[in-house]
């Protein structure tokens, strides 16, 4: 079904039908114009597609093949084996890491969506003049390097950071609060803030596309604002919510820099383990196996989220 949808989409974009030629089979129209191919659209969609296939798809295929070989000493033996996948499934530490990554990912994604919805809603429905400024500010925040933002959070959450200084200064605590940093809390807070703009943008675009007539109709039919929101706005915005949620989830569950810098000794995620396998341990086959196990996990999560979102969504 996905394949049909994609083919239909591509064909509708790439091939232009002449407007003045009816397509009904019973018309005997001898002046049927050949459909012209829209080269502009083909290039616009084709170039990133080729880029992704060559620079992302092909290397991932190579790694997929690696995951079926194994490491002996410092050389990779090119013989087919499933031992890496068996290792991932049977080793309690990898299962624990995958579980932890999914949990942290889901928490962060939920938090990000919950925090970004009001912002996107305000931008779409409440702000008229300030809308573009807010949008610009958000995009501007994306200009700063990811690592710089992680370090900024170190300064905020640390023992002598902004939060602790305020708490100590106001006398609310006598000792600096230690669990703000080098814990899972720090990882979740930092990644939520980093991925907020990435979540707000699709939500904003979806909310902007909700025709105000629909909301007016709901009001005319007697719905109060809360009902309007729950029954009309929210279901129509589900595609955006799903997109934001999945972005935040995948990016968090796979992250390894923030856990390495802010996670302390007990918040390592699966990304750290994959990084070690590819780096220190030089065990590319095992690293690839862990990677593709995570791909399967993500596919399962996508499927579950997609199913539940479809139940909540309304075809606009």
């Amino acid at each position, binding site marked *: 079904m996905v394949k049909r949808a994609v083919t239909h989409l591509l064909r509708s974009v790439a091939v232009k039908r002449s407007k003045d030629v009816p397509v009904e089979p019973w018309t005997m129209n001898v002046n049927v114009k050949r459909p012209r191919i829209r080269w502009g659209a083909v290039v616009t969609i084709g170039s990133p597609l080729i880029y992704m296939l060559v620079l992302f798809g092909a290397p991932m295929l190579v790694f997929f093949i690696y995951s079926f070989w194994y490491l002996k000493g410092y050389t990779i033996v090119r013989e087919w084996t499933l031992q890496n996948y068996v290792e991932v499934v049977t080793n309690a530490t990898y299962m624990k890491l995958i579980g932890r990554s999914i949990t942290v990912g889901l928490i962060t994604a939920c938090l990000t969506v919950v925090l970004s919805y009001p912002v996107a809603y305000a931008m779409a429905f409440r702000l008229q003049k300030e809308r573009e400024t807010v949008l610009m500010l958000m995009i501007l925040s994306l200009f700063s390097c990811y690592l710089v933002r992680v370090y900024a959070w170190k300064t905020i959450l640390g023992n002598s950071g902004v939060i602790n200084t305020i708490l100590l200064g106001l006398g609310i605590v006598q000792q600096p609060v230690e669990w703000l940093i*080098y814990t899972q809390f720090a990882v979740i807070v930092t990644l939520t803030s980093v991925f907020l703009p990435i979540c707000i943008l699709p939500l904003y675009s979806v909310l902007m596309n909700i025709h105000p007539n629909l909301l007016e109709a709901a009001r005319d039919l007697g719905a109060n604002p809360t009902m309007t929101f729950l029954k009309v706005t929210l279901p129509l915005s589900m595609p955006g919510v799903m997109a934001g949620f999945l972005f935040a989830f995948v990016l968090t569950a796979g992250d390894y820099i923030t856990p*390495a810098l802010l996670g302390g*000794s007990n918040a390592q995620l699966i990304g750290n*383990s994959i990084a070690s396998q590819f780096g220190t341990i030089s*065990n590319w086959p095992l690293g690839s196996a862990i990677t593709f196990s995570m791909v399967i996990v993500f596919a399962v999560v996508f499927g579950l989220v997609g199913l539940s979102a479809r139940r909540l969504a309304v075809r606009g």
Partner: protein
Amino acid sequence: MAKATKVSRREFLVASAALAGASMLTLRHAVPALADTPTPQPTPDLEKLRGTTINYLGWEGYDYAGALKPLTETYDITVNSTYGGNNEEIFSKLKAGSAGQYDVISIYHGTIEALYVNNLIQPIDTERLTHWNDLYPAFRNQPWQVREGKVYSVPFTFGNTPCTYNPEFVPDGIESWNDLLKPEFKGKIVTLDVANQELMVAMLAVGIDINRFVTREELQQAKEWYLKLKPQLRAIVPSYGEMADVLARKEAWLTSGSWTAIIGWAREKGVELKYVIPKEGVAGWCDNYLIPVGANVDAAYAFINQMTSPEGARELAVYLGQGMTNSKVVPLLPPEMQAEFADMDAVLAKTPFPPDPPLEPEDPSIASNAEWLQTWEDIKIS
């Protein structure tokens, strides 16, 4: 006479401004760290490198610009550095296919075997090393340095991995590695994410001799000790720079194994740290410069010769607070460092260079490098 040397007023002003500017420039650069640093005489090798780039890969700090100044300024050479947070990162960058990308690398003595086995380094012609014969004899024939009669690395500095602490919170440091397990240090210790250094600390704490290959049971004992240390940790950081940052922000009070260079970095951030060698001893290490396959060898030899020269080594020694392998550097050191390194035999006796675990041990009871790394991963995840 009237026509011969007629200089307009403007020309004279321009010339004298240029002269003033030039003399100010030379004055600024003419106050070297050492009063009588000789400018290297232009040699054929170095002239070839004028205006080029030397690509360095290795530990941060070992490309210290201050030590390279006579080379970079006189010959207008740029040093392009890539850093690795630990030895395995340096190794994997090379292994990932970088023939020709780097001219000179620095790495710890234990990783040299892996580089050699993977054909990533080339033999060094000691004839081209100006200061080879000034190195202490111990640094010219170590087992990890010489393979099949050829020298593969130039040791330029050595040191150990002591415990660094903040005297503001820990006035006297620690006496034994087991002091790290004390309840008052809970959540106050920062360690580096590097397997062999941390596991050797654990082995020393338990009383295992690290100067020979270690068995699996001993590795397991080290793991159990480290799991007792884990609740005491504030963070396991990915690099020494991070470690200095954590100590400077006073998030942690002390480290397990560390590098004395972090004392210099923390000092820049306003915190004065000290180091101590606990009674069980400490693992020594020796950092070397090597030439990878595909390097520009002229650039590599120029770099190495500058860094192992007495003047260059002196700059490095002061910046890093470590011992240097060139015997001629000791008289150039500041007085407090001279006292520390005056008796080199005693110093070398205190810093053994333990072997890294073998890649494929011949004796099956010996723990292999892979097992050390996997043990460390298990410790981190548990």
